[in-house]
């Protein structure tokens, strides 16, 4: 008799029950897993903190040679907030009349570059894999970095230099 019914409806009772049970289990399982997965991937969907401009000194302090400035930026690291802010560094110089503030983070794999580091003259040098950049932060061909150093947004107000967000150069 079941043979007969099957040809009529196109689906056996057993198959119907299997699908019903499987989809109920799937529904319950995803109801359980969805909050947990969403919880885990939250960092992917969070917006970064806005960077505010920070006073790093008088414009007249900077000359043609790159000079290191250390300053503090406010950024939340999850539940942790460093007292006084997170340390940041910039290599600042005058490029003609314009101010150029370079990020010291190597574009190869993120180590810290130093002006004339490792006894190399007239370049930024990265100690990790020997990456080099010219004075204006452009990567020297034949060394590992693929791109020029990032620059800080700059702003001059009342003779003081302010540094803002880090931007990638084209």
């Amino acid at each position, binding site marked *: 008799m079941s043979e007969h019914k099957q040809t009529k409806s196109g689906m056996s009772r057993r198959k119907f029950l299997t699908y019903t049970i499987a989809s109920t289990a799937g529904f319950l399982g995803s109801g*359980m897993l*969805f909050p947990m997965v*969403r*919880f*885990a991937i939250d960092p992917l969907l969070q917006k970064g903190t806005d960077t505010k401009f920070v006073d790093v000194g008088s414009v007249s302090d900077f000359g043609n040679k790159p000079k290191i400035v250390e300053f503090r930026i406010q950024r939340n690291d999850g*539940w*942790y907030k460093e007292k006084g802010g997170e340390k940041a560094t910039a290599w600042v110089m005058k490029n003609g009349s314009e101010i150029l503030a370079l990020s010291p983070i190597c574009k190869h794999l993120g180590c810290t570059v130093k002006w004339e580091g490792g006894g190399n003259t007239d370049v930024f040098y990265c100690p990790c894999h020997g990456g080099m950049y010219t004075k204006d932060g452009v990567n020297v061909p034949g060394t590992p970095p693929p791109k020029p150093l990032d620059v800080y947004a700059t702003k001059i107000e009342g003779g003081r230099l302010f540094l803002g967000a880090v931007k990638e150069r084209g």
Partner: protein
Amino acid sequence: MLKNTYEWLDKRLDITPMWRDIADHEVPEHVNPAHHFSAFIYCFGGLTFFIVVIQILSGMFLALYYVPDIQNAWKSVDYLQNEIAFGQIVRGMHHWGASVSIVMLFLHTLRVFFTGSYKHPREFNWVIGMSIFFVMLGLGFTGYLLPWDNKAYFATKVGIQIAASVPVIGSAIATFLQGGEIVGAQTLARFFALHVFFLPAILLLLLGVHFVLIRRQGISGPL
């Protein structure tokens, strides 16, 4: 498509016999709620296991954000609960699941007791079950400290004082649990390690034995 994949794997890995060992077994009429509704009391063991699975999963996810350190524990819990999407839900699952698992475990124990299922030849599985019960209580006790709030701190102080009242070895137990002279940084680190590594490992081992024994001995007969 699904069937072909399964067959491809089965040809190489021989899954079907394993699947049979795990899932394909006799369910007697007297434990099947479809036959006698009152047989739902036989579900509590499985429900306990289900809750334990939820606890393990939600615990793994909570550990993505939690930090077992007296400076940061409370802040990280506050952050994961209030700043992360579904944080309240995931923490809620672990929080309520902790209580529900104990309740289910207790109901399961009552069912085994009142149906006399612990009798020969299943005495040993009763002992394993009791060990599981104490490991679960241990998980509850160690997990309670981790948020590092007032309730957690004083509950642990009280718990350790109770442990310290054991004759002769009491103070040794208290020092072992505390990991130092006070309930502090070392206690938190220790309770975290116990809660996420030692006790779950023991629990899974005991559950494995519990289930193998059920399969070996079969489900106990009707009253």
